[in-house]
């Protein structure tokens, strides 16, 4: 099963809502181990995404996803802008033809290629990678997502701004992993993924 333009739009708008609702929380998480702007960066981005994808003439899922990618890339800046942007762009390339597990896997590849982080570096990769695994096994659930999120807490950051803190980054959730968790919860809410 592949996603329609409509499903993709619903998914991204749901994600957008979750970001707005948690803007302050995301910034607070980033204040602890970064520079405190992840909430405002993401919120600036999804506001632009909303505007870009409302256009009803976008017919294919890939059209919607590409618009979202460009909005993130051109409005967020910082580290998360290019990362979400690259993820969405790689997803756009396959979304019309591949099942959702392959789509998210393509996004993960985009993130890894752009940011050069691996699993356990305490980045959004630590959310995307377990989600890809779970999707492949047909067992993605809110619990699995929450579990992945919680697992970023004990990690020591090796990439991004949090890595300057070294040991002091331990004991905090990774903000980018948390914002990504909203993307996947939104997916669960809008699409039947484990078919």
């Amino acid at each position, binding site marked *: 099963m592949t996603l329609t333009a409509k499903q993709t739009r619903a998914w991204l708008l749901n994600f957008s809502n979750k970001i707005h609702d948690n803007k302050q929380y995301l910034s607070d998480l980033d204040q602890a181990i970064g520079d405190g702007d992840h909430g405002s960066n993401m919120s600036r981005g999804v506001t632009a995404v909303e505007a870009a994808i409302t256009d009803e003439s976008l017919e294919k899922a890939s059209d919607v996803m590409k618009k979202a990618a460009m909005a993130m890339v051109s409005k967020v800046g910082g580290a998360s802008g290019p990362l979400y942007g690259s993820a969405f762009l790689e997803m756009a390339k396959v979304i019309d033809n591949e099942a959702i597990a392959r789509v998210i896997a393509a996004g993960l590849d985009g993130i890894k290629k752009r940011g050069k982080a691996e699993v356990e570096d305490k980045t959004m990769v630590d959310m995307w990678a377990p989600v890809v695994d779970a999707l492949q096994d047909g067992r993605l659930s809110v619990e699995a997502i929450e579990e992945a999120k919680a697992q970023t807490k004990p990690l020591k950051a*090796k990439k991004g701004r949090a890595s300057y803190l070294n040991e002091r980054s331990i004991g905090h959730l990774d903000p980018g992993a948390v914002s990504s968790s909203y993307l996947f919860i939104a997916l669960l809410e809008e699409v039947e993924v484990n078919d």
Partner: protein
Amino acid sequence: MKKIINDSGTVVDEMIDGFCFAHANQVEKLTDFRVVLRKKKTDHVALISGGGSGHEPAHAGFVGDGMLAAAICGEVFTSPTPDQILEAIKASDTGHGVLLIVKNYTGDVMNFDMAKELAEMEDIKVESVLVDDDIAVEDSTYTAGKRGVAGTVLVHKILGAYARQGKTLEELKTRGDALVERIKTIGVALTAATVPEVGKPGFEIGNDEMEYGVGIHGEPGYKREAIKTSAEMAKELVSKLSEAFSFNQDQKYGVLINGLGATPLMEQYIFLNDVKQELDNQALTIAYTKVGNYMTSLDMAGVSLTVIAFETDEEIDALEETVDTPSWT
């Protein structure tokens, strides 16, 4: 928060408008992209730099003949986006190619990289030099690497001179990469900067405390102590640089004392005087000195000390050469 602003959401745009009005002879705004362009096109490789705003005069103050062709302004303390950078590249290239001078932060690196890829798709030759002079941070494969701070402006100036001489993009890239290896910086902060949108200082620090190694966005440093004399601060910072460089008495060095925004010039010159003593004690030759607010952190009080080890006198000449920009004296 006491600031002379109107709305924390529009500080960057209003600043750019004021800046381009003040320096209308030298620069102009690339509308809609928060890019400050040199008014007169260069007939050589175009150097471009930028980053989050809040570091003024970096980077827009260094746009002009002999330094940058364009500066890209992100949100306060946030990297600009690839489309902004791409527009700056397109507007600056005169067929000789474009060199991006990027401070080493994850966000900046990725956004500039994306812009480079986009520009290459439009057949513009683009190279980049990554500046990572802040030795406060450990450089290892387990971190994002050292940060780019005040040493960046020396890279602008030296490569700016080389570009004006007509050196090729490849040559500038090679020289730039080598140059960065010989520029190291370390700072001390007395107070934290307040980002307008946040409205409160980025970190808490006592009325009698200072912190060594703080980054220009308030990234935590390596040691916090009760405030010391200028001479003791100079001793600490020079000793850190001394470890990082293994100083050589046969080499010439240059020194940049950079005010972080709220520290008076008087204190910067006093600090320089103490740094000089420390370097004299090691019998080093200081062949170039620069003092002032070049890479600031909004209203942070403190200074950074940058040392450059010169390989040739050509580099000293490049620093001393007259340029026509808003902020390089």
